[in-house]
C-alpha cells in the first residue's frame, strides 16, 4: 500500500486545520477507504484520521430536528430508540448495512460522502428532506442532501471541507416511514435495489403527502417525483400502488453490473415501490388509530 502522512486531530478546530493541508483526505470508519487504498483505487498523500474527534459522534433530539453527527456509526443508529421512533426507515437501513463488524465502524457521514448510488442510509434521509451541515477552515454552510450528492462517488464537498452533521425534521400526524432492500443474500449484501418511502394520511384516509426514493437504479439515489405526484390526494388501494409502481419504472435509469441486470433492477424497483408504499400506509393507519 502507498504511504501517507498520518494526522490525528482531537478537536473540530484541529480537524479543520489538518484537512486544509494540501492533498489531505479524511478517514472516518475506514470500511471503504482502507480496502480501496490497498487496491490503489484511492490515494491520499495525507490522511486525516477522525477517530479522536468525539464531538462528531452524536445523535441529538433538538426538538424541531434530529441531528446526527457525521461519525455516528451504523450500529449506533440501528440501536438508537430515538431513531427507531422518529425515522424507522433509517433505523432499518442502518441495520441492513454489511454485518455487525462493518456496522460498528462505518459511519453515516462516510456512507453519505461515498455517494454510492446503492448507499443504504441515503434513501431514508432523502425522504425526510435531510439537510447537510458542512464545515471547513473558511466557514460553514448548509445544503440539502439532494443538492449535496452530485453523482456516483461525487459530492459538493470542497477540498478541506467535511460533513459535520446531517439533520432531519421528525414527521407529524399520521405517517409511515419504510425502507426495504434487495441484496444477493441477507447478510453482508450491497443493495441490488433499495427503496424508502414516507406517506402521510389525512383525516379522510387520503394520501396528503408522500416522498419516495430508490437506490442503485440511477447515478444517484433517486427521488421519484412523478410517482409521488401520481398517488398524492388518492385513497390507498392495491390498484393505485400497482399503477404507481409502473410509473416509477420510467423514472429510473439503472445499469447492468456485477450484482444485477438493468431489467432485474427495473422489475425489483417496481416491486419495492409497491411494498414500501403499502407498508408505509399500514404504519400511518396504525398511528392514526
Amino acid at each position: 500500500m502507498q504511504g501517507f502522512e498520518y494526522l490525528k486531530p482531537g478537536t473540530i478546530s484541529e480537524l479543520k486545520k489538518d484537512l486544509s493541508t494540501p492533498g489531505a483526505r479524511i478517514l472516518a470508519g475506514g470500511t471503504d477507504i482502507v480496502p480501496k487504498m490497498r487496491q490503489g483505487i484511492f490515494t491520499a498523500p495525507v490522511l486525516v484520521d477522525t477517530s479522536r474527534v468525539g464531538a462528531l459522534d452524536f445523535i441529538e433530539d433538538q426538538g424541531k430536528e434530529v441531528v446526527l453527527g457525521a461519525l455516528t456509526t451504523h450500529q449506533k443508529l440501528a440501536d438508537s430508540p430515538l431513531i427507531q421512533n422518529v425515522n424507522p426507515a433509517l433505523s432499518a437501513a442502518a441495520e441492513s448495512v454489511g454485518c455487525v463488524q462493518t456496522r460498528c465502524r462505518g459511519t453515516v457521514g462516510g456512507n453519505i460522502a461515498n455517494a454510492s448510488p446503492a448507499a443504504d442510509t441515503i434513501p431514508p434521509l432523502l425522504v425526510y428532506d435531510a439537510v447537510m451541515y458542512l464545515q471547513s477552515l473558511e466557514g460553514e454552510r448548509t445544503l440539502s442532501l439532494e443538492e449535496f450528492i452530485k453523482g456516483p462517488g461525487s459530492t459538493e464537498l470542497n477540498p478541506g471541507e467535511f460533513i459535520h452533521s446531517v439533520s432531519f425534521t421528525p414527521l407529524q400526524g399520521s405517517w409511515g416511514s419504510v425502507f426495504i432492500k434487495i441484496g444477493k443474500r441477507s447478510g453482508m449484501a450491497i443493495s441490488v435495489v433499495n427503496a424508502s418511502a414516507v406517506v402521510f394520511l389525512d383525516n379522510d384516509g387520503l394520501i396528503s403527502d408522500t416522498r419516495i426514493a430508490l437506490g442503485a437504479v440511477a447515478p444517484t439515489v433517486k427521488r421519484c417525483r412523478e410517482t409521488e405526484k401520481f398517488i398524492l390526494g388518492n385513497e390507498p388501494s392495491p390498484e393505485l400502488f400497482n399503477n404507481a409502481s409502473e410509473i416509477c419504472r420510467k423514472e429510473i435509469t439503472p445499469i447492468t453490473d456485477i450484482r444485477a441486470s438493468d431489467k432485474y433492477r427495473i422489475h425489483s424497483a417496481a416491486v419495492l415501490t409497491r411494498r414500501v408504499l403499502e407498508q408505509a400506509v399500514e404504519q400511518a393507519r396504525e398511528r392514526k388509530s
Partner: protein
Amino acid sequence: MNQIEVIFNLNGRETKISCDPNKTLLDVLRNDLGLTGAKDACGGEGECGACTVIFNGKPVNSCLIFIGQVIGQNITTIEGLSLKGDYHPVQKAFVEAGAVQCGYCTPGAVIATKALLDRNPQPSDQEIRDGLSGNLCRCTGYNKIVDAVQLAAREYSNG
C-alpha cells in the same frame, strides 16, 4: 513516510510499537506482534470476518483498521480469551459442538460469538445468524456453529 508511535491495550497489556501508518491492525498483530490467531482470508476487504477482533467491546474486522486508529484503545484478540491457560467457554462450546473443520474461520467466529454474547447473552436463532453474518465458513454449513453459540449461551447463563 514518517513512522508513528502506537500505544494501545492489547489483551489487557499496554503494547507499544513504532510502524508505518499504512499498516492495518491485522498486519501489525500478525507480522509485528506474532499473534497469528486473527486470519487474513479475503485479502483485506472486510468480507470474511476471519480477522475479527474486539475493539472497545465491539467486533470489528482488523483488516479494515489502520494502526493509528487503535492508539489508546482496547483490543482483544483470540489469544486474549485464554490467557489463564484454560479455554474460554465459547472456545469449549465450538469444540464440543464440532463447529470446527478446517479451522481457518474459527478464531473470527469465536470472537464474533463472544462479542454477541457479551451484548446479548440469550440470542435467538435469528440473532445468532445476524451476529455471525459477517463470518464466512466454507466447511461447516454453519449449523454446527449455530449449535456452538447456543451451547455457549447456555454456559453463559449458567455461569
